[in-house]
Each structure stands twice: as structure tokens, then as C-alpha cells.
């Protein structure tokens, strides 16, 4: 099976273990990913909050490249990229005027529909739950996981049209399919502060503290994510949260693809489980 792949900037740097673990899982499952040629940054929050057309055009430029390459289905593992690509598609579907503007700005037109999938959709709907289940070698027995969706995977629901915007279940289902336990908790779609990590760090620390408190009291031993922003904010800033609030959180924040990889029998190093700020030692020990 071959699909288009839009890694986005993070998967080549701060979220390299997300890219590594996704590649390892795909190799194991014989899924071929073709990178969108010469892809550019989706623009993230700074673009769409600076100029509306800039936010759409940067994302559209990637859909254009994908369509020229003949890609019909593109996986966007980064929740922020996924959200921007879906937003561009939604906006263009609702405005011919905007389509004309994008043709002018980018000098091209998307000739056929390029479908965009997030990581959970991709493995659930495209690869298939039964196929995945059949490939499990080491079930995640005894792992208590808080599935953290954040904002951009599920909201705005009219744009992404994926799962429930307040109480999504797809990641929880995946964890259970992998043999683990997903805890019930109340912060699964709370915001981590997103791109405020650098300019407004205090906001991110406060929101992170709330998320960890909730996960801990629900009995979770780790948090699973599908977004590089959420991962960076919770993993890289966890010691700052502990310092500021005199807490003692030691909660690994792992990508869903890393947990999939462990269940598929891939080695922790190949999944980048040694590149986290908060040690994943306890988790890795079991595999």
C-alpha cells in the first residue's frame, strides 16, 4: 500500500521520534509512504493569525504539490499540519472567490481531490483495525494510558469532521486494541497552550499542570499524544512545571506511533524512546 506523506517541519526536528516511530511502524506493516515533493511549512498559528490568505495559501501549496504528484490520499501525522490542510480544504470548498485567489497566489490549481488523514484515521480507516490487530506481537498489557487528543485533531469539528470534539474515543480504542488500558479522564481535549510555549511560557506551564494532575489522579502512568506541539509542551516543560508548582510529575509523554511500535515488537531505540526529556525507562523495561 502506498500513500502520500506530509511530515511537516516538526517531524524533522523537535518531533523526530514521531517521524522515526511512524517510519518503523510503516516498514513493519509494509505501508509505503511517499513524501509530498518539496513540501513547505503549513504556516501553523503565526500565518493564519497574521494574514488570512497567507494561512490558506501556505497549506494549499502543499495540496497542489501532492496533486501534481498524483497523490490522492495524504497522511499528515502532525495534528497542527493536519488542521491547517483541512482548514484550507474547508475554506476552498466554501468559497469560489477564495479558490480564484489561491489560483492567482500560487499560480496553480489542485486538479483532483487530495484527501488528508490524521494518524488515528489513517490506521483505523485506511490500514484497518483488523490488519493492525493481526500484527500485534507484544500486547501493551498492564499499561495505563491517558489518551490526550488536544485541540487540533478534533476541533473545529465542522472543519476536521473527525471523532467527537469533546469526548473523542479513537485513540482510546487504539490503545485497547494494542492490549493496553485507556483511563477515563477529563482533560483529553483540554488545550496545552500550543504555540504559546515560547512567547507565553507561563500559560503553557499552567495548562500542563492541569493536564498532568488530571491524568495522574485518573491513574495514568503515561500520556499518549498525536501532536508534536502537545508532546513538546508536556515533555520538555515538565521539569519547569515541577519547579514552578512544587509538583513531582514523572510522566512520559509518548507518541501513539511509539506505543504501536512497541506492540508490533519494534525495539525502543528504533522508536526513538530514548530521546524524551522525561525518562521512558519504566515503560521500555517491559518490552
Amino acid at each position, binding site marked *: 500500500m502506498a500513500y502520500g506523506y506530509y511530515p511537516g*517541519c516538526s517531524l*524533522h*526536528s*523537535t*518531533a*523526530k521520534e514521531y517521524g522515526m516511530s511512524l517510519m518503523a511502524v510503516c516498514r513493519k506493516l509494509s505501508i509505503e509512504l511517499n513524501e509530498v515533493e*518539496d*513540501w*513547505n*511549512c503549513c*504556516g*501553523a*498559528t*503565526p*500565518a*493564519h*493569525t*497574521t*494574514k*488570512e*490568505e*497567507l494561512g*490558506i*495559501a*501556505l497549506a494549499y*501549496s502543499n495540496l497542489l504539490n501532492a496533486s501534481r504528484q498524483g497523490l490522492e490520499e495524504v497522511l499528515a501525522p502532525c495534528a497542527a499540519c493536519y488542521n491547517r490542510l483541512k482548514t484550507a480544504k474547508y*475554506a476552498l470548498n466554501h*468559497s469560489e*472567490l*477564495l479558490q480564484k*485567489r489561491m489560483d*492567482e*497566489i*500560487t*499560480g496553480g490549481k489542485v486538479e483532483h481531490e487530495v484527501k488528508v488523514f490524521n494518524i488515528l484515521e489513517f490506521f483505523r480507516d485506511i490500514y484497518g483495525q483488523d490488519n493492525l490487530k493481526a500484527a500485534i506481537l507484544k500486547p501493551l498489557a498492564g499499561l495505563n494510558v491517558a489518551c490526550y487528543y488536544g*485541540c487540533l485533531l478534533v*476541533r*473545529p*469539528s465542522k472543519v476536521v469532521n473527525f471523532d467527537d*470534539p*469533546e469526548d473523542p474515543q479513537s485513540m482510546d480504542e487504539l490503545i485497547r486494541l494494542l492490549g493496553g488500558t485507556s483511563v477515563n479522564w477529563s482533560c483529553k*481535549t*483540554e*488545550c496545552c*497552550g*500550543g*504555540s*504559546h510555549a*515560547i*512567547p*507565553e*511560557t*507561563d*500559560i503553557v506551564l*499552567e*495548562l500542563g499542570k492541569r493536564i498532568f494532575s488530571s491524568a495522574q489522579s485518573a491513574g495514568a502512568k503515561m500520556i499518549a499524544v498525536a501532536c508534536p506541539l502537545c508532546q513538546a509542551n508536556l515533555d*520538555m516543560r515538565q521539569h519547569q512545571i515541577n519547579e514552578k508548582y512544587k509538583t513531582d510529575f514523572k510522566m512520559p509523554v509518548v507518541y501513539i506511533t511509539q506505543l504501536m511500535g512497541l506492540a508490533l515488537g519494534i525495539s525502543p531505540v528504533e522508536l526513538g524512546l530514548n*530521546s*524524551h*526529556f522525561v525518562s521512558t525507562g519504566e515503560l521500555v523495561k517491559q518490552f
Partner: protein
Amino acid sequence: MQLKLDNNVSQFAEEIESLSGLKVYDCYQCGKCSAGCPVGQFTEESPTRLIRLIQLNQKEAVLNSRTPYLCATCSTCSERCPMNIDVAKIMETVRILASREHVKSPVKEVAAFSGAFLDSVKSNGRLFEFGMTISFNLRNLTPLKDAMLGPVMLQKGKLALWPRSIKNKERIKRIFEKSSYFEPRAESTGKKEH
């Protein structure tokens, strides 16, 4: 805050409506957006209050409010609005309008971050995180902010020291040059129906 009110229709509300295509007057101040706002404790005007200020033609107060800049664009407000107002989009519209009218951002850190981020994308086609962070720190006059994270990230291979540019940089240049502040909207979509 003392407001100067008149009995005229809010020209500012009409402006926001025509720029965003959203109906500002649909808001009846239920407060659901503010109740769920994750950055509520860090702002002076709640989203509910900001929308009321728009309805009351308080353009200057709104364009100088910190709320649209501290909005994390999580869209919880938009999702929960009983009148289906995309509140997060209103925040975005206010920010873009302020920028178009050269109103100085009341949250200089967020403005510095956006500027550093977009400069990086403009010159490389992709975000160069290391360069962007240094550029932010210089703009923000906080040269050592997060400096302790750098060495650990380097050691873990999570920080590239050189940018990786795309091949066709012309297309990015063109996008930055040609993009307007707002997308075009048909005259009728912005008009209120009340």
C-alpha cells in the same frame, strides 16, 4: 473601563462581520465561550466581553485588548457556542485587522514570535526552529530564554543547527507577496440579518 456609548449602529461590528463573514450580533452573552476558555485567567476581557465591546462599537478597546493575542486558537469557544459563532475566528479577525491598521500589539512577545516564525518560513520555505528561537530571543530582548533546553535537545538530536530549505523558494516568496490580510467575501455574507 468607561465606555462612550451612542445610539448608532456599531460600525465596528459591521466591519468585523464583513471581514469575517460571521454574525457578531447573534451573540446574546450567554458566557459559554468564556467558561471554557483555557487562557481565561490570563486575560482581562473574556471572549464574551470582547464580543459585547464589538457590538458596542468600541474599536479602540478591542484592537488594543490582549485577549486575541493570548487566544491559543483551541476553538473550544467556537465548538460550544449555542449560536454557532466561530468565536476563535473573531479573535483571529481582530488580530489581523489590528495588524492591517498598524496597531501595536499589546502582547509584544506573541508579536515577536509570529514575526520570527514567519521570517524563517519566508526565507527557507520551512521552519528552522533553532534560528527562529534565536531570532525571537533577540526581538524579545531575552537572549537566554530557554537556553538550558538547547544543549539537551542537541544531544538528543532534536535540534538542527542549519536550515533545510525547499527547492522552489520562488513559490514561497510569491505567496508572501501576494497574500492579502483577508480573503475576499461576497457583499451579502457579511450583512447582518436583524
